[in-house]
Each structure stands twice: as C-alpha cells, then as structure tokens.
C-alpha cells in the first residue's frame, strides 16, 4: 500500500514538472516586455507628469502666460520665479522670465491647476540626466517659445 502511494507521488510530481515546462515554453513565444531604450521610446501613460512647460498661443507663438504669479504663490516648494511686463502697444502684461527650480519641484501640479489662462501643462520629457544640479535649479521654460520682448 505504501509503495503504491509512493509511486503515485512520483508520477504526480513528474506531471507537475511537465506543467511547469509547458508554462516556460509558452513564455518563449510571448513578445518580450523590454523596451530597447534609447532606440525605442517607453510608452508613457496619458496623464504622465513631467516637469511643467509653458504653452504658446497658437496665433502669435508667444507664451500665453499673463504673469499673474498665481502659480508662484501657490507653489508649496516655492520653485517658480515669474516676472512680467507690458510689451509696447499691448493691453496685457506678458511674462519675460519664467524659471523653474526642478530640484525642489514635487510635481504636485498645483501651478497647472491654478493657472487662470491655462498657460501651463506637464511636459512628457522624462529623459533628464546631468552631471550637475545647476542644469535643473534654474530651468528657463521660455527658451523654446517666441518672446515678444526679444523680437523688438
């Protein structure tokens, strides 16, 4: 009787080994999940939060920011510095300096939420690396946009 149980145990064990091998063989034919960075881009989630960026007015190409400083005042880490003035002949103030201290930013998104003209958004820029924090503690977010001040 004991021997019978023993043989059954061995056979069951053998079958379970075959099941395991079937699973790993199946895995061989599933496409690997690896993203071949940097030759492939990682798929980002739709609401990915990169560092904040300034949005431009589609018509003029100038930043939409009116330099109200709501973002700077709402920032819990005080990492935004924004100043503005009126360009010649314009009705509203426009920003001439918008700096982000990304070393302090916690990506909470309060600045994006509070902006009255929706001039701020999260970028999808995640490949940030540098040898010094000086590259990130005074990021000039106006760099990529046209400026009404330098144009004149």
């Amino acid at each position, binding site marked *: 009787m004991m021997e019978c149980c023993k043989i059954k145990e*061995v056979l069951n064990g053998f079958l379970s*080994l075959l099941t395991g*091998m079937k699973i*790993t063989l199946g895995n061989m034919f599933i496409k690997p999940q*690896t993203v071949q960075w940097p030759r492939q881009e990682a798929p980002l989630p739709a609401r990915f939060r990169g560092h904040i960026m300034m949005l431009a007015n589609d018509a003029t190409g100038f930043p939409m920011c009116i330099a109200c400083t709501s973002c700077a005042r709402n920032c819990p880490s005080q990492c935004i510095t924004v100043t503005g003035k009126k360009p010649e002949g314009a009705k509203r103030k426009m920003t001439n300096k918008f700096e982000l201290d990304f070393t302090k930013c916690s990506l909470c998104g309060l600045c994006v939420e509070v902006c009255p003209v929706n001039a701020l958004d999260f970028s999808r820029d995640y490949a940030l690396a540098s040898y010094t924090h000086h590259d990130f503690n005074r990021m000039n977010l106006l760099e990529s946009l046209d400026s009404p001040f330098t144009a004149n």
Partner: protein
Amino acid sequence: MNISLVSVICYLLGIAALVGLNAVILVWLERKVAGHMQFRYGPMEVGPHGILQTLADGIKLVSKQLLIPDNADKPLFLLAPIVSLVPIFAAMIPIPFTETIQVWELNIGLLLIIALGLLNTLGILLAGWGSNNKYALLGGSRAVAQILAYKIPLLICIMTIIMMSGSYSLRDIALAQKDGWNILYQPVLFIVYIIAITLETNRSPFDFSEAESELVAGFHTEYSGMGFSLFFLAEYSYMLIAAALASILFLGGWQGPFLPGLAWTLIKTYGIICLMMWFRWTFPRVRIDQMLSFGWKVLLPISLINFLITAGVLAL
C-alpha cells in the same frame, strides 16, 4: 597503431576550437533562452542579437587579474580549473560525430568517457578545498556527496544500453540503432539518463555545488578571471559531451532521414542541451537531502527494475 604528431596536434586544435566555439554559443544561447522565458530579450548590444556578447565577456575575463586568497593552497587552487578542463580533451576522443568523423575508434569508448567525466568532480573538490573558503569547501564536498546518488543510476542506464547493443563502442551502439532508436524501447531510461546528466553537469535544479542562493558561488567563489572562465568552459563542454552521449545512446547518433549525419548529430546534441537549459529556467533548486533521497530511492530502483526487465526480455 601509428599516431603521428601532426594528427595529435590537429586533434588538439580541433577540440580546442570545438570547446571554445561551443562555450561561446551555449553561453549566448543560455542567456537568450533565460531572457525569452522571462519576457526579456537577453543580450542585444554586441553584434546582431548579442551573438558576440560572450566573446566580449571572454576578452574581459582574460584581461582580469587572477586573485589568489591569502591562505589558499596555491598549487591546488591553480590546478583545480585545469583538472576540471583537461579531461574533456581526452573524453572527446571516442565520440563519433558521424560515421567517419571520429578521432579514434575505441572498443571501450563509453567507459573512457564515464571515467574521465568523474575527473570533473575531482576538479570541483580541489577548487573547494584549495580556496580556503567555507562556501567553496561546502560546494566541493556537496559535489562529492552527490556523485554516488547519480552515477549508479547513470551507469545502470548505460549498462542497459550496452546490454541491448552488445558493445562498449559508441560507434557500434549508434549503428545498432539503425532500425529503431533506443528511446523508443527505453523511454523511462531516457528520462533517468537526462536527470542523471543534469546532476552530473551541476545544472539547476541540481546545481548544489554552485547554489548561488546558499553558497555565494559554491566551489568557484574565490576564482576570478581565467580561473573562473575555465570552470565555465568545462561546465559547458561537459554539457556537450553528456548531450552527445545521450544522442548516441538513445537517439541513434548521426542516423536520421534526409539530412547529412553531422547535421543530425548537431540537432540531437543541441536539442538535448536546450532541454537542459529549459530545465534550468523552469525548476527551482531542490535541497541536497531531497536530491540524495531522490537519487537513491527513485532513480536507482527505476533504473534497476528497467535493467532487470530488459535483461529478461533479451534473454527470452
């Protein structure tokens, strides 16, 4: 019997090339198989699909310093990788890769391979003893402890095959399977043999003498650079020998339809090696006492019963 110096040199060069190429391909293949079984790619950077990765690793290993621990037994420490590797050169002599490609037809070829295969364990024991490291010593002593548990079933397997074909010569054994491969008559024995060679080549799930999660790296804990890579080379070469032996003993060696002999040998040998890789990346390591009781209580009775039945059938 006249052996010229030229043919000996040709043989040594040929085997060195085979051993090196085999290790380069197998290490790459192993990493690829491991990767794809875990939804990864494995090496991709050096060469197309990382095929040259092992070569780059080899160059790195050659350029590394060979460290010798302070209180190590220096002669033994340096001798161990060589003891592990050199028997391979002799063990490949009687293997018939095809009917014509064979270094030397020996009428006791099978015995020679079995005897030389044991020297690998000696190399592991020397490494464990010479390293002056408790993990290495544990790994080395484990290799010796498990040897009886798998060698006896393995030898009974081989004895059964010898009984069926009536010869110790690998070539005769292969030729005896002209009408039907031994695996058709002895499927259980084939499984026992595969388990035994997995044990013999120290591969997971029976890699007790290395056992990363228990013994750091087991017997080669203290080895670096070429010492380490010689052990690596030896491991993959023993895999090649064990798989080639399996293909000759059970799968009819070079014989098969349509394709030329060498192609069949390669397909069968590397198929069995892939099977061993498949084991490694599927099964977790068992404990040493589980393995020993498995060897003595399961493998040995199965192979003995199989042996007796075969003997009875042959006698009828």
